[in-house]
């Protein structure tokens, strides 16, 4: 298995997750994501995209199967190991999870503060991200007073703030217009170029239709063979997909 090689950022092997009473959110999902790859995860509503992302930052645990992130088995990871790992993961939640009474800047800063970044770095990075996402004038606004689209961009900014190795974006453009979506995608691509691994769950085809990135589809909790035919969801798929993508 290539799990411990730094070249594989995410490894899922035959992962199943069932919510009570019997919602099979994920069934036998196997997926391998290279370090530095940008992967799109699509599927109808309720297909299990969010569930898959939540497994990767261990806000959910699978019923069966192996989940490895950055070479670490999430089932066996220690408390402090998980804390360190989570600081290397930036997740933009579908429901944003902003603190409504904190200001926009505080919300973004939180991700960097838990990693004990310097205040000067935090301020600079926050400004930069807000500028990139055209939200500079909202620096001191409480997050709860923003529109959905604005909140979404703050959630993305927070996910990227600490320059994480792994970015998990859950429906990042769900509330955004075309133009703003482009801004977000530009940011993502920039992080990809700088070596980050990104997994973007979306049903917005336009995000990945320009090609060049691997797309996998979930249907009723199962991973489908994607358009180009690689990654059949078996344990060996990781090697195949790696080769196919290079």
């Amino acid at each position, binding site marked *: 298995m290539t799990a411990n090689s730094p070249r594989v950022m995410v490894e899922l092997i035959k992962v199943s997750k069932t919510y009570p009473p019997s919602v099979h959110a994920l069934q036998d999902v196997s997926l391998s994501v290279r370090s530095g790859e940008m992967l799109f995860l699509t599927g109808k509503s309720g297909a299990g995209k969010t569930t898959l992302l939540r497994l990767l930052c261990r806000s959910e645990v699978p019923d069966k199967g192996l989940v490895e992130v950055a070479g670490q088995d999430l089932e066996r990871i220690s*408390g*402090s190991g998980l804390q360190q*790992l*989570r600081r290397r993961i930036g997740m933009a939640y579908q429901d944003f999870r902003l*603190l409504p009474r904190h200001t926009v800047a*505080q919300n973004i800063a939180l991700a960097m*503060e*838990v990693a004990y970044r*310097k*205040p000067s770095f935090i301020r600079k990075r926050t400004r930069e991200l807000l500028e990139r996402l055209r939200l500079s004038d909202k620096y001191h606004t409480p997050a709860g007073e923003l529109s959905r689209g604005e909140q979404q961009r703050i959630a993305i900014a927070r996910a990227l703030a600490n320059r994480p190795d792994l970015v998990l974006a859950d429906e990042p453009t769900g509330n955004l217009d075309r133009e703003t979506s482009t801004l977000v995608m530009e940011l993502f691509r920039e992080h990809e170029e700088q070596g980050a691994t990104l997994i973007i769950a979306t049903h917005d085809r336009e995000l990945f239709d320009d090609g060049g990135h691997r797309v996998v589809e979930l249907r009723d909790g199962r991973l489908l063979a994607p358009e180009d035919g690689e990654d059949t969801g078996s344990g060996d798929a990781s090697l195949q997909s790696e080769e196919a993508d290079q």
Partner: protein
Amino acid sequence: MNFLRAIIGQTLRNLRRTWSSQALTLLTITLSVLIFSFFFLIYINMINAGRHMGDNLRLIVYLDEEPGKPLQDEYRRKILKFDRVERIEFVSSRQAYERFRKQLGHDQDVLEGMPRNFLPPSIEVYPIRSLATLTRIKRFSDYLQTLPGVLKVQYGREWIDRFYSFVKLMRVVVILSGLLLLLTTTFMVAHTIRLTLCSRERELELLRLLGASNQYIRAPFFLEGALQGLVGSICGLAALYVFFDWFRLRFAGTAVLNLFPFTFFPIPVVLTIITAATLLCAGGSFFSTRRITRL
């Protein structure tokens, strides 16, 4: 360094957000410290006063006849065996007479015609000066009474007894108010922290997801508790000092203050009280956040 800065920033934000319950806690701590240190101050001053009065404290043992040198040595040996004393003095009949005569001054003539040995000889025992002596003096006196040839033992029995029982009472009061301090501070601190924990549940959950370490989450609470203990005890002691100062001015020159030198806590005691309160509150908050370290 960044860790400290992050923690302090977090703590300040916290305090700003929950200042009303924080203020209530602070008030409770201040009052508890005030009550405790009030009684403690009285207690300490009583001990001082006791020591002061012990300065001219002596037991007078009246004997039925003049002891010769060997008997004197015998007495001395037995007394020293029973307890350490500062000084033992033998006063013969004649010496007692002379002393009495001097005390009378101009009225010496009343002694005329009296035999020179009409006063009994005595041993004057000066115990070591300490409060402990006050408490032991009764036992000492009881023992001396059993020595052969002793007529009577005299000391300021009544006021010593009364003083001693008052000191005992004060000790209980000090201990009780100390317990009160202990209970209220730890309870109030734990209570406010629990409130904060509830009101910040979402935030704490988010911090967990962002990978915050246990220290990052717990340290602000610890700091918060320590800060409350520190500020609360300083306020309480300051309030006591203001009261103390007023009291001293108000009763300056009166008999009470001339008799007892009423003083405030020495600096080390002040520091000890502040440190203890700070540690207490910090500890209380630390233990009440044990729960949140579980994932």
